[in-house]
């Protein structure tokens, strides 16, 4: 069976989709011969079958990565940087293709979502390339005849990627890893394997030697778990649900490999009485419904001060209705695509039912216009808004990961902070108030890794990102990512200290 399949995407783009595993710069079938299908969530139809990696395939990939490290680690940083820059050009040249594949495989609207993702991959490659010759250590004076130096060393890493921003989330992992000189075994989600496979061909074209970048498509229980526990990997980086993150962390204890996790969130967006309510409504709408709410930092809990509660809800309802147009992902006007799968669809629907059962009031989600706008096929869920929520409701505590938001009320600042922090998660938080003092003080108290002051979900690749509490371990993006992908060695220089 060929390792490429000719496909035509719904927008007419024709291309050869790699379907194999990418190991040692070669396309290979899975050792078991097994394949799995990936489904277009907009049509519910399968797109293509790709080879499924099992533990043996992961072993081969790790072996290739380990071997490649022997020579790759001595290649100067500036040479690695140049290859990354070249790769960024290739991504831009193939923007339409990658964005189309992404839109078809993951249900992200092409014009307003997946194109931006692919651009961000190119941008992040360039940003990280800049670090490649700047992986500095320290010189630490100790005494007259002694000093120490530290040097950073790259790691052989395993990376496990989610399905909500397939190539973009992959880039958050492989860009800093490549800049730090790591060799990589990366596993896409079984729900969205296609874009990373297309990308792998570009990595080879950019001139990265065999074994530096290896791609395995497959499932968490088999391939993912093997990566997490593999004795020859120095590190595993994971983005996904908290529950799976816990499994990864446990498996990683096999050889005490480094672990970084970017997990779930139930990020609270706080609207205070002196907020610019219009702006708060706009940002809250964006921060919640973008990517159909399938976003770890979605502001899926909104807490509004009682005196502005009604006004905010009115504005918010208008914004949601105005901005989120459900439709075919290749339709320019569509801003809200389907959710990723039947499994997620059912799960989100169950949460919606629970919300109603527990007494939350639904003001959007089942309006006639909304239901009429849904395409016949596809896992489309319209923007759903619950108000008058209570802290102990399931839809307030648990991550839904869909276009469903739970709005509650508070009266004092103290109560706002308490409620905001009442979560096992701590990924992000948003604070809307025009008062500088208030915003600083409250932000200081919030248990979250990223606080957005008067905005939501507008992160920048230069700023460290990572959650408190059960939202994760470690910081990605910014200069902090270097710490994730290097290991420091200390050298004691004895310049004549004799005993």
């Amino acid at each position: 069976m060929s390792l490429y399949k000719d496909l035509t995407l719904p927008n007419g783009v024709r291309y050869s989709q790699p379907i194999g595993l990418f190991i040692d710069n070669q396309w290979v079938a899975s050792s078991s011969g097994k394949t799995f299908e990936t489904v277009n969530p907009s049509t519910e139809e399968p797109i293509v079958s790709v080879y499924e990696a099992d533990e043996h395939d992961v072993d081969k990939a790790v072996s290739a990565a380990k071997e490649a490290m022997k020579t790759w680690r001595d290649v100067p940083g500036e040479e690695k940087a140049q290859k990354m820059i070249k790769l960024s050009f290739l991504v831009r040249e193939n923007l339409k293709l990658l964005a189309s594949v992404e839109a078809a495989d993951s249900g992200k609207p092409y014009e307003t979502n997946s194109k931006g993702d692919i651009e961000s991959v190119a941008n992040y490659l360039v940003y990280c390339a800049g670090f490649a010759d700047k992986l500095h250590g320290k010189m630490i004076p100790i005494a007259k005849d002694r000093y120490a130096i530290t040097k950073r060393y790259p790691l052989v890493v395993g990376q496990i990627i989610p399905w909500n921003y397939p190539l973009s989330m992959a880039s958050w992992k492989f860009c800093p890893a490549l800049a730090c000189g790591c060799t990589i075994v990366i596993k896409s989600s079984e729900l969205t394997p296609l874009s990373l496979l297309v990308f792998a061909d570009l990595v080879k074209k950019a001139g990265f030697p065999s074994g530096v970048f290896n791609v395995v498509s497959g499932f968490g229980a088999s391939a993912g778990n093997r990566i997490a526990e593999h004795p020859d990997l120095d590190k595993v980086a994971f983005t996904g649900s908290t529950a799976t993150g816990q499994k990864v962390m446990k498996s990683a204890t096999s050889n005490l490999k480094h672990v970084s996790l970017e997990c779930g969130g139930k990020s609270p967006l706080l609207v205070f009485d002196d907020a610019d309510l219009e702006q708060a409504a706009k940002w809250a709408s964006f921060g919640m419904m973008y990517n159909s709410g399938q976003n770890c930092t979605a502001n899926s809990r909104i807490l509004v001060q009682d005196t502005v509660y009604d006004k905010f809800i009115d504005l918010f309802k208008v914004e949601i209705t105005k901005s989120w147009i459900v439709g075919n992902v290749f339709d320019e006007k569509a801003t809200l695509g389907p959710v990723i799968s039947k499994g997620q669809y059912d799960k989100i629907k169950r949460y919606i039912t629970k919300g109603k059962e527990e007494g939350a009031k639904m003001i959007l989600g089942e309006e006639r216009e909304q239901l009429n706008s849904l395409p016949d096929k596809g896992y489309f869920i319209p923007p759903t808004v619950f108000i008058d929520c209570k802290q102990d409701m399931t839809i307030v505590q648990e991550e839904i990961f869909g276009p469903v938001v739970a709005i509650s009320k508070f009266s004092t600042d103290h109560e706002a902070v308490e409620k905001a922090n009442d979560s096992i998660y701590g990924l992000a938080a948003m604070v809307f108030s025009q008062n500088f003092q208030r915003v600083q003080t409250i932000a200081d108290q919030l248990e979250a890794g990223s606080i957005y002051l008067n905005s939501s979900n507008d992160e920048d690749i230069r700023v460290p990102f990572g959650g408190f509490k059960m939202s994760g371990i470690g910081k990605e993006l910014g200069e902090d990512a270097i710490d994730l992908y290097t290991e420091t060695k200390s050298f004691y220089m004895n310049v004549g200290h004799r005993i």
Partner: protein
Amino acid sequence: MTTFSKTIKFPIINEAYEQPTGLFINNEYVAAKSGKTFKVTTPINEELLCELQEAGSEDVDYAVECASKAFKKWKFTKPEVRARLLYKVADLMDEKRDLLAKIESLDNGKSLVCAKFDVNLVVEYLRSCAGYCDKIDGRTINTGPEYLTYTKREPLGVCGAITPWNFPLLMFAWKIGPCLATGNTIVLKPASATPLSNLYAASLFKEAGFPDGVVNIIPGSGRACGSAILHHPKVKKVAFTGSTSVGKGVMKDAADSIKKVTLELGGKSPNIVFQDCDIEKTVQNLITGIFFNGGEVCCAGSRIYIQASDEEWYNEFLAKFKKAVEKIKVGNPFEEGVFQGAQTTPDQFQTVLDYVKIGKESHLKVLTGGNRIGKRGYFVEPTVFYDVPQSSRLTKEEIFGPVAVVLPFKSIEELIEKANDSEYGLASGIHTEDINKALYVADRLEAGSVWINTYNDLQQNSPFGGFKESGIGREMGAEALDNYTQIKLVRAKISTPTL
């Protein structure tokens, strides 16, 4: 409109190129306001290459106005855009690397080996600078919950640069790279003796897409043009590379308006040979140290200290050194196999011959060399005096040519004292296989760079600069960015409202 251009032919090889001859201001090649021109000759055969427009104070005024206007926008240009432009111009220079090297050799007289080394480092360094653009971070300083305190690194504005004739293009890159990366604009005066590569490279900055006025290259005299740059109130900073005596004048002039000044000045760097060195490698490193670039190198290892505790070993070493030096091919850089080209200016050429004469007249022992080569072109034999006393003028004064003095030493303490006995402190070399000795001596040398078992070994991400009268500030590496930014501290009081 006149196009300022002249076709210039390279000797021996059958090639020619178009040399821009105007002043490069605001992305255009223009006439000098005074209409004055000056001649550029090649030191290879003293022939006239072309006439260039000569910048005077009115041209400086115009260039600074353009740079100042450009700064208003450039300061706010997104860092990733600045990075893209720097990567682009580096790529353009990479594509033209052969031509740039040839122009440099023709104008400066250095061998193509040396010119190619320069151009390579130029490209690497501009790329490294590109990688810094979006990483100019400040820091937050935790002084408790009542304050938000952070530092911002801001550009200075219009920066002036005055560069020397020994590494025309490399010194251009060392100034422009960090200057532009940090959001400043530049008015650069290359040395009148060697303006060609700079003026040519300017066109590549335009081609890359740098906005009008960001880069301005205006050759002119030190007295008129250089002085005007130093006194212009809108020039916020001056970077100067040249002799210590002129550097002192620059610093004094800059004091009038407290311009920030960085200086990269002269040197008389000690290159130290211990008996337990690898002889063959050391001999090559000594040659690199003083004959690379015809000895016209600020950090040239021009004082060679050789361990003479064992006289027989010392004499054997000298014999090997002499043999290797006499193998050096000196001649027209466009001839095959030439390592050492012509000295760059007639004045400096004469200075070198004068020093050789002083050496001979003070009865210094000549190991090899000591004569001019040929009658046309500024060629000197690689020259070594040995058993030279510490007090000799040739030991104390910077010769800036292919002339080395060898001084024997017996003890480490004697060596360290003598090596540091200089008002200069730019670089140094230590050749030994004993790590303890190397680090011990390195610790005690008063020099900005210590090279161990190598020499003139520059790297784009490593800082370079002098102790003592060899200069102020560091170039290349992360440290270079400090020269082109100023720190603003923002301290915001937050009176804590009770939550």
